[in-house]
C-alpha cells in the first residue's frame, strides 16, 4: 500500500486537530492514501484528552495571557503542553487493517517507529505500555489513538525541550505542587531530546521521518484542496466552547 508523508508543518491547535480529523474521514472512505504527517504548534497550545475537563486541567486565564491556545482532542489520554518549538508531533492515519486489531498492540507497533526515529538520533528509547515511550526510565513521548469507520488515527508528541515551570503555569496544578520539589519530581520522570543529544528540531524531524518511513512504500506529499477544505470546516468546532468545554 502506498503511503503519503507530509513533512514538518506548523499550524495552530485548531487547524492541526481539524486536519487529523479530516484525514481520518477521508482515509476511512478510501478517498486518501494512508498518511503520516509531522507538525508543530504555533502558537503553543495545551491539548486535553477527549474525556478530560478543560476547567479541571487547564488554566485558561494564564493561557490567554501567554497567547497559548487550548483545545480538546478527539483522542483520549491526558493534557499535553505543546510548546512552540518544544516538541514534534506526528499523526499516522491509515486503514485499521494495516495494524493489529488489538488497540494496545497497535500502540506498540506504531510507537516502534518513534523508538526507531529516536534511535536514529542515537537515543535509546523503549515502548512502555499503555502509550508511552521512555528513555532511561523517563517519559519522552506519549501517544493517543482513535478508530472510526475502519480507519485509525494515532497522534503523539516527542519532547524536544522541557520547561516544567511554564508547563505548570498553564495546567491546573495546585499551588502546593508548583514547589521546587515538585518541579524536580517532574524532571525526574520526564525527559526530552535536548537532555540527550545536541540536535535541532529539524534533525529530530528528519530522524523521526526515517523511523516511520524506512521500508515503507511512500512518497512525500501535501494535503489536497478537498482535505484542506474539510479541515477548515472542522476547525470551527475545535475553536468552540461547545466542544472544548463539554466536560
Amino acid at each position, binding site marked *: 500500500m502506498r503511503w503519503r508523508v507530509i513533512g514538518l508543518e506548523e499550524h495552530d491547535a485548531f487547524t492541526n486537530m481539524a486536519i487529523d480529523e479530516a484525514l481520518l474521514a477521508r482515509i476511512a472512505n478510501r478517498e486518501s492514501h494512508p498518511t503520516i504527517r509531522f507538525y508543530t504548534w504555533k502558537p503553543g497550545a495545551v491539548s486535553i484528552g477527549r*474525556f478530560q*475537563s478543560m476547567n479541571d486541567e487547564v488554566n485558561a486565564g494564564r493561557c490567554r495571557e501567554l497567547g497559548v491556545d487550548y483545545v480538546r482532542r478527539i483522542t*483520549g489520554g*491526558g493534557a499535553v503542553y505543546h510548546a512552540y518549538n518544544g516538541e514534534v508531533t506526528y499523526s499516522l492515519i491509515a486503514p485499521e487493517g494495516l495494524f493489529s486489531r488489538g488497540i494496545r498492540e497497535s500502540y506498540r507497533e506504531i510507537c516502534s517507529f518513534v523508538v526507531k526515529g529516536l534511535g536514529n538520533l542515537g537515543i535509546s528509547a523503549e515502548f512502555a505500555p499503555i502509550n508511552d515511550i521512555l528513555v532511561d526510565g523517563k517519559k519522552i513521548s506519549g501517544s493517543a489513538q482513535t478508530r472510526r469507520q475502519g480507519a485509525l488515527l494515532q497522534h503523539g508528541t516527542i519532547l524536544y525541550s522541557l520547561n516544567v515551570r511554564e508547563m505548570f503555569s498553564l495546567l491546573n496544578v495546585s499551588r502546593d505542587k508548583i514547589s521546587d520539589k515538585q518541579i524536580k519530581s517532574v524532571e525526574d520522570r520526564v525527559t526530552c531530546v535536548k537532555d540527550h543529544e545536541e540536535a535541532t528540531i529539524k534533525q529530530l524531524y528528519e530522524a523521526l521521518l526515517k523511523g516511520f518511513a524506512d521500508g515503507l512504500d511512500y512518497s512525500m506529499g501535501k494535503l489536497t484542496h478537498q482535505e484542506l477544505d474539510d479541515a477548515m470546516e472542522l476547525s470551527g468546532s475545535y475553536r468552540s466552547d461547545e466542544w472544548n468545554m463539554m466536560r
Partner: protein
Amino acid sequence: MAREKAGRASLKVPGGKLVTAKILYGGDIRRVTLTGDFFLHPEEGISAIESSIEGMAAGSDEIDIAIAVQAAIDENGIQAIGIDAASVARAVKMAMR
C-alpha cells in the same frame, strides 16, 4: 424527595489511568460525569456508561454499580483502556461518601 448533593472523587487505576467521577445525587444517582485520561473505543460509549449508573439508588453497592457499568460496556461493544467497570464503580461510590 431527598435533597440533591454533589460529590466528586478521583481514582488512579494501578497500571492504568485516572478516572474522576462527578455525581449529583439524592435518594438516587441523578447525574454522572466521568472525566480522566483514559481511553474508550468508541469514544461515544462514555454516554452509555454514565447513563447505566444514573437512576440507581445512591446507596447501591459498589458491586451492583460495577455490574451495571460492565453491562453497558458489553452491550455497546466498548473497549476501555486504563479503566474498567470496577474502578468506575469505586470512583462513583467514593464521590458519594
